[in-house]
């Protein structure tokens, strides 16, 4: 593959995946800035190894796994958050619409789940992936994904209460 063709195929991959990664990583980490940085890091890694990644059956699953692994590294995440906070002092937050406060309360509960449960929740409900694709990202069986989702919902149900407008908090 020529360099030009490589760049074209990667750019298309980036345009497809970057927004989705930012969405799931924002829910996962609680910070849009951190999410954008993690998504870009994961996609940069994909670009560095694009000759291999592009040949995988699902480059998207690969980059999600890399991104979630990176998110799970608490030490790195804290460093990034600190850096992001520093940047926020001099730059305004993205103009994109932020989730509502009810959503934020829910995601805060999600972030209190185990790493595996958090992974499956954001992949299922934010990335809207089918169970088979989540299993591919997680490197486990579909049954294991179902188990994580059931346990995650049960844990959330114990901590959130219904509100009058039909949403939950």
């Amino acid at each position, binding site marked *: 593959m020529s360099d030009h063709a490589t760049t074209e195929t990667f*750019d298309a991959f*980036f*345009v497809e995946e*970057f*927004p*989705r990664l*930012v*969405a*799931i990583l*924002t*829910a996962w980490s609680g910070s849009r800035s951190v999410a*954008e940085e993690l*998504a*870009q890091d994961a996609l*940069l890694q994909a*670009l*560095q*190894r694009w000759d*291999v990644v592009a*040949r*995988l059956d699902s480059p998207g699953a*690969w980059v999600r796994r*890399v991104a979630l*692994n990176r998110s*799970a*590294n*608490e*030490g*790195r995440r804290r460093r990034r958050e600190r850096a992001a906070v520093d940047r926020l002092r001099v730059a305004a937050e*993205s103009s*994109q*619409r*932020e*989730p*509502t406060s009810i*959503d934020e309360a*829910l*995601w805060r509960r*999600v972030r209190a789940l185990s790493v*595996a449960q958090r992974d499956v929740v*954001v992949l299922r*409900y*934010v*990335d*809207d992936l089918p169970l088979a694709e989540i299993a*591919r990202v*997680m*490197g*486990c*069986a579909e049954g294991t994904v179902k188990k994580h989702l*059931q346990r995650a*919902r*049960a844990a*959330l*149900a*114990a901590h*959130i209460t*219904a509100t009058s407008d039909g*949403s*939950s908090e």
Partner: protein
Amino acid sequence: MIDDEQVEGALSRAGERQRAAAPDAGATQRALQQLHARRAAEPDNGGHRRRVWPIVAVVGGAAAVALAVVVAGNSGTDTIRSVPATDPVVTEQRGELDLPDAAPDLSLGQPLVRRFDGLPLTDIAVSPDADRIAVSRASEVCIVSTSPAVPTDADRCYPFPSGVAPGSITWAPDGTALVFHHDLFGFGQEPDLVELDLATGELTVLTDDGVPIDGDGGALDIAPTFTPDGTLYFFRLSDPSDGVQAVLHRYDGDGVATAIGPALAGVPPTAGRGVSDDSIVIMLSALVGSSELVSVDVDGGTSRSIVIEGPSPAIADVAGDRALLVAPSRVASGGFELWVADVPSGNVAPIDIPQLAASSMRVVGGGLSPDGAQVALILADQDDPDGHLLLVADIAADGSVGPLTVLATGPEFAPNDGDPTIKPAGLGRLGEIVWTDAGLVYSLGPDEIVTLPLL
């Protein structure tokens, strides 16, 4: 508290709003431009970060700087050391690992890679204090340090006259001796247990019965294992003409051994060298259509058996109450299949490795953490010299293996430095990973070992 359906609805609505808040086309394009700018600012090394490691090469006893490879951001401050002419270690390299996806609870130090010229390595064992590694091959056993601070001229080798490689090297708990099974004189006798005193170099045959391997009443003494209290156990395989019987024995000193537990049938058995608390695990294979993993209590009490239908696995490692089992893959792509056997529950769970389906990856090494709660695997991509992965997964209480996390990548995890044109013998067997509290020691190819400290 709300019910499951309401939670599902709340998550679905919140997820939908999260997707709607994702970066729009303009923001995505700006991010893409930033990424290309970051990429352009990196050194152009074919897409991989490079670091430069000083490497010492000794050929025929003459030290020379052979090669400088890999590494950016390293000033090359490692010391180049000389190696005596008699030293079997021919090259050494040190450097940093590329750690793009480090798992949350493990971090790795600098690897120490050591190569051995000549005959292929057959076994490795880490000392109880994790400071030394014993490696064996047909001609000798060598003791090398796991610390880069210890000069290689402190290595010591013990030559053997027979030219037959020792098997199942085991350290005495006090670190002063090794015990292994070995046909010391190479006269066609059956393996006996031999003790090597590391201070004097003296070899002592512990269980010599003087009977040839095909003679009546011959006994093959294999798989020596010390329990933490310093007692030596081994399995004696007897009467090959009437189906091998494996019996756990305790070595009582002065050539005397006592049989413990029942005779276990199976031909030929392979044994793990690990001890699970107060029991020893052995694999009895080659039974028609099934294999049997047996755990025998060292007090002569009960034994537990797990029958495994279908494949004929061997034990790759034993730790805690678990055994890592390996067998050649039953699919055309080759490689290995792996399982974790949880002895108390009897569960045998396959390890699902999605990377194998997505590439030309092959499992080339595997091992369990000291407590048996995690498993480490090394995958090598035969089409990509740098496409190697160190994966780690938690093992649940029931023995099931969780998702594999990429702990590190890089050519350090490749047999023969990842040169895809070389097909080392190591690719035909599962490489060993010895996981201690101090780090990982592994041997994937026939000519090198790597020490990877855990920080």
